[in-house]
């Protein structure tokens, strides 16, 4: 029997994924709390451990790991951008160890090391974001924000913004197919022509986006939606009432919170998380 799937913002997830056992608010706070870890911690070893932990979470949550493969080129590009930025524009100090000299540019080990530190931090952060988008639906985000007492208008706008990205991608593909059917294929053109002709995509895309927003506004009015600013008025949170916080939610939240406070305290009061403790700094 085929596994029942549930649409997430970035793909599909089996209905029996353990992640659905958690309240949407917990999953939303996961993004907010856990993505603070790589921002606080620079130690590459800890960020590598964090990335491995995230991959394990992907597996446990039954997220199709192919979703990460879709971003492999982004990972590669990101590495080159960071490496180029730090090695060519990272500055030079006479104490630095020069690895290669390319004309006036000195490629130094210290700059390359910084590039690696930042890259590993970003990998951890990106994996957190991919996990979040792979396991959350627009509904979960709205419910999570409403559970955090965020006004309905803001929560709904956040959901609508996320959905509009998806709709714009669909519109863009439709326009691209239509342009191809009329013998305009940008992929086959040189870069300068691509730039010149890009308007052929952008103009209808913007026109469609304006039309869609007009339609959504009419539909909202027709369903009795009254804009009450940040006050929710008499609105019932029916969907929110279908979710309950469980012991597991409190446990996960407590765990994430304690870990966050822990690394903040350790980074303030000890040098265990300092870059000097890293193997990279002993080379």
């Amino acid at each position, binding site marked *: 029997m085929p596994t029942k799937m549930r649409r997430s913002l970035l793909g599909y997830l089996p209905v029996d994924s353990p992640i659905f056992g958690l309240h949407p608010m917990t999953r939303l706070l996961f993004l907010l709390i856990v993505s603070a870890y790589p921002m606080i911690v620079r130690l590459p070893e800890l960020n590598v451990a964090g990335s491995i932990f995230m991959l394990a979470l992907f597996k446990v949550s039954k997220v199709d790991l192919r979703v990460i493969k879709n971003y492999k080129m982004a990972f590669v590009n990101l590495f080159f951008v960071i490496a180029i930025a730090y090695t060519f524009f990272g500055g030079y100090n006479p104490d630095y160890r020069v690895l290669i000299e390319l004309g006036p540019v000195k490629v130094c080990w210290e700059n390359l090391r910084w590039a690696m530190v930042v890259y590993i931090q970003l990998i951890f952060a990106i994996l957190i974001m991919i996990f979040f988008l792979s396991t959350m639906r627009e509904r979960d985000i709205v419910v999570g924000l409403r559970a955090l007492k965020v006004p309905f208008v803001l929560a709904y706008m956040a959901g609508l913004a996320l959905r509009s990205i998806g709709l714009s991608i669909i519109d863009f593909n439709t326009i691209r197919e239509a342009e191809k059917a009329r013998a305009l294929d940008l992929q086959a053109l040189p870069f300068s022509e691509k730039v010149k002709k890009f308007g052929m995509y952008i103009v209808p895309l913007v026109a469609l986006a304006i039309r869609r927003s007009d339609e959504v506004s009419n539909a909202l009015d027709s369903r009795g939606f009254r804009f009450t600013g940040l006050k929710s008025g008499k*609105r019932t949170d029916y969907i929110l009432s279908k979710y309950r916080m469980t012991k597991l939610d409190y446990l996960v939240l407590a765990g994430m919170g304690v870990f966050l406070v822990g690394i903040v305290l350790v980074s303030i009061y000890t040098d265990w998380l300092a870059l000097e403790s890293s193997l990279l700094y002993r080379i």
Partner: protein
Amino acid sequence: MAEPVIRVEGLKWKYEGSRDWVLKGVDLEIHQGEFVSIVGPNDSGKTTLAMSLNGLVPNNYPGAMQGRVVVDGMDTREHSVAEIAESVGFVFPDPESQFLSMTVEEEVVFALENRGLPREEIEERMWWALELTNIPEDYLEKPPYELSGGEKQRVAIASVLAMRPKIIVLDEPTSMLDPIGKTEVIEVLTEMKRRYNATVIVIEHRLEDIAPLADKMVLVYHGTIPKVAPPREFFQDIDFLLEHDVFPPDVMVLANELRKRGLYDGPVPMTVDEAERMVREVLGRR
């Protein structure tokens, strides 16, 4: 006779930037519980008339208006669309353009949440609307965007039905659907007619499907209403309809031809069964 639930008096409407009036002094009365079908050629003003019934015209579109539209006691110029939505549900032609949520369940309860109804009532209305539109329970968690055309429009109708409005306006609900989707929506309209005593106003081109359901047919032509009549009377003068770019179902055209040749003088057949009886009667005479 009871006070009409919709009264359109001398309605003229012109969109901003347009030279011509789209509606040129329209008068129309619709009573509670009537099933009304609005027909007419493209660009005749049907959609504008429909949008004037829930206040989208003039509230959401800039333009010039003369005359007035009173819906369930509310003058559309004095009440917002959201206020009028308490009485009028509106189904748009493109099902995707009216979706406001990413799951069927959220979509159906959205308007009920807006009204601040108790949770138990929301739940009860949701199941009622889903049952009436034949949407299975396992669709609740699905994104409406991923359903078939007919299913999408059924979800859109369920979302409006859940509001239990006195009046439901459906603007060409089958125009963007494949034949199966069209049939599904017509089946839902049939169920609505049978089980839900609301005033239903449908703009529809599939006359053969909608005529048997309608209590009243309204012809809109170049911004005017040249004919309002019950279906049998409406289709009595086929030549008049053809002159106004309305193409009646083949069985009615056949009845018209037989009548012209003096072979048939009975009522206009509205269904295939009635047409079969008509043909048997004609063949029996010969």
